[in-house]
């Protein structure tokens, strides 16, 4: 029962929010309460799975592979916890930053259903169920993106909606083909039975279809165009929620499916993933360099960072595929990917929150229109400096360790090209962060067009940003324990038999039983 809570709590919160339609204050209270309790539940799950046990839950008492199974392994639990952290920060930010109309009519319930769908996608052990969570996530994000109906939002939404729906169709077709050829959709069962396919090329085809479909959702090269076209258009709280979670669900799905199901294809897929990772990093960061708007620069950086996560996965599965057995180096590279994801979710969502704070204090995020915030808003500038340096990978902040683990894994595995590419890209990341810094924060402050924020708004806007900054520093300082967590998660990911055993005869608790 415990592992269904991160889905049930925000669902319940959303339902209760609908009862207060048109009134922003009770909705905000409900949203904050439900994200906080979601965070508590997911931390509880994380503590339960820390020692390597995998929790499973069969809905309706139907044993796997017949019913829908929820599985919480270490990676899934980490992702759910991060989702809850971002959710809580964004809700707190929304209390300060949302305009009254949006806040009273749909912003909170939709954000909550989005969070429920994201946790569902992280926890489910069934491919079709994953599709359903994806669709719930997409529908909530469609409405959040267009809520307000400004011209930019609608234009961004058309691109976002079309490409994401196309990816869902491909996913659905892949599901149909998998069911028709293998005869099951439970991921653990699929992992066991996919080796029995008479034609091994079929497995390659299925893996490719899934990779393309999740690649669109993750914003990987060459399918990322919808992302920079839409992420800067909605209100800042919504962009922060999207930037922290949506593409990461795509990355999560790629990692889960490739590591669990298609282990016989690893040597081939490893190369494909590495090429995609390298191109994603380079195109993303080059796209960011030419932009002149803070939020658009950050959107392009999401794309380039997705490349780092795929890089860890590519090195790890390529190595295991060519050696034929798991090795400590592969585990290290995989843990780099996991570490990178959890560093990235926090830092990226925070940078978007900061750009939101800049937007509501100055009325713009264009680099040419905003100047001298370091003098007029020193606290905000310091928070931006911490987050952006962490993103670029300056030592002791979380980004340094994430990149360090990845690069070390890459060097030990002998993938020198991708390591060189990733180092060059992080240099360019540093360049575009200093570009934002020199243009927005340095210089003489100009006259503010919008009135200064009142104390209450300021507290709600700054506290989540400061909290996330503290978290970045904590991950950086306590890097050893975070790295340990990532290593354990990576080891579990690369050894799919543990997941399979847990689903079929492990510590399974049926719904209604005490966990």
């Amino acid at each position: 029962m415990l592992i269904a809570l991160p889905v049930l709590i925000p669902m319940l919160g959303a339902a209760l929010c609908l009862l207060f339609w048109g009134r922003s204050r009770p909705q905000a209270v409900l949203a904050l309460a439900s994200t906080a309790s979601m965070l508590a539940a997911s931390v509880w799950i994380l503590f339960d799975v820390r020692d390597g046990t995998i929790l499973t839950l069969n809905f309706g008492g139907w044993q796997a592979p017949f019913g829908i199974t929820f599985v919480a392994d270490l990676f899934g639990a980490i992702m759910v916890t991060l989702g809850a952290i971002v959710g809580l920060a964004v809700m707190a930010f929304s209390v300060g930053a949302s305009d009254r109309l949006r806040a009273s009519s749909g912003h909170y319930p939709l954000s909550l259903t989005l969070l429920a769908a994201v946790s569902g996608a992280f926890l489910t052990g069934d491919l079709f169920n994953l599709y359903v969570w994806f669709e719930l996530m997409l529908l909530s994000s469609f409405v959040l993106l267009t809520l307000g109906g400004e011209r930019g939002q609608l234009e961004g939404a058309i691109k976002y909606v079309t490409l994401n729906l196309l990816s869902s169709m491909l996913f659905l077709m892949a599901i149909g083909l998998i069911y028709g050829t293998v005869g099951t959709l439970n991921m653990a069962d699929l992992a066991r039975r996919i080796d029995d396919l008479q034609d091994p090329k079929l497995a390659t085809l299925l893996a490719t279809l899934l990779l393309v479909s999740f690649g669109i959702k993750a914003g990987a090269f060459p399918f990322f165009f919808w992302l920079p076209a839409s992420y800067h258009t909605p209100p800042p709280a919504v962009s922060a929620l999207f930037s922290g979670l949506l593409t990461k669900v795509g990355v999560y799905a790629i990692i889960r499916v490739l590591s669990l199901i298609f282990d016989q294809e690893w040597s081939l897929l490893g190369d494909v993933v590495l090429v995609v990772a390298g191109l994603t990093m380079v195109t993303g960061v080059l796209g960011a360099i030419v932009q002149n708007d803070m939020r658009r620069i950050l959107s392009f950086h999401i794309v380039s960072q997705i490349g780092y996560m795929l890089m860890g996965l590519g090195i790890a599965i390529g190595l295991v595929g060519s050696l034929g057995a798991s090795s400590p180096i592969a585990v290290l590279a995989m843990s780099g990917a996991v570490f990178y994801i959890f560093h990235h979710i926090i830092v990226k969502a925070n940078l978007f929150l900061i750009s939101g704070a800049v937007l509501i204090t100055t009325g713009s995020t264009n680099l040419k229109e905003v100047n001298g915030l370091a003098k007029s808003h020193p606290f905000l500038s310091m928070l931006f400096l911490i987050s952006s340096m962490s993103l670029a990978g300056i030592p002791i902040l979380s980004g340094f360790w994430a990149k360090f683990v990845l690069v070390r894994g890459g060097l030990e595995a002998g993938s020198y090209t991708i390591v060189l590419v990733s180092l060059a890209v992080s240099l360019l990341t540093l360049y575009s962060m200093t570009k934002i810094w020199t243009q927005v924060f340095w210089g003489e402050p100009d006259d503010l067009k919008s009135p200064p924020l009142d104390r209450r708004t300021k507290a709600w806007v700054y506290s989540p940003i400061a909290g996330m900054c503290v978290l970045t520093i904590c991950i950086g300082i306590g890097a050893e324990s975070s790295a340990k967590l990532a290593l354990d998660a990576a080891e579990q990911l690369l050894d799919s038999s543990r997941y399979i055993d847990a689903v079929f005869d492990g510590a399974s608790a049926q719904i209604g039983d005490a966990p």
Partner: protein
Amino acid sequence: MNIILAFCCGLLAATGTYMLLRRSFVKLVIGLALLSHAANLLIYIVASPLLGRPPLVRAGETQPPAPFADPLPGALILTAIVISFGVVAFTIVLIKRTYEEIGTDDLDQMTSTDRDLC
């Protein structure tokens, strides 16, 4: 029977893709709807349907007489249809609102978010 359905599925997917590549919004939505039909039909075909063999358990027995049709693809398709219905409904409202806001249904005119403000 299956071969006819397979051709239908291919035709739907091809038409849907062609429509997606048009410049008009309305055709874009039609394309999305056709593609979702193609995906649903694909699930049905791949699971090799058996005509006239419902998976019904007779009284006193524990399983239906073999061979029987697999009921699961039907359930999957129903779920997918409901979802794609919701999504298409949303897209139709979206194109209506966009048309009211921008005053054109030409996708090539929608570049204001891609241009720099300076």
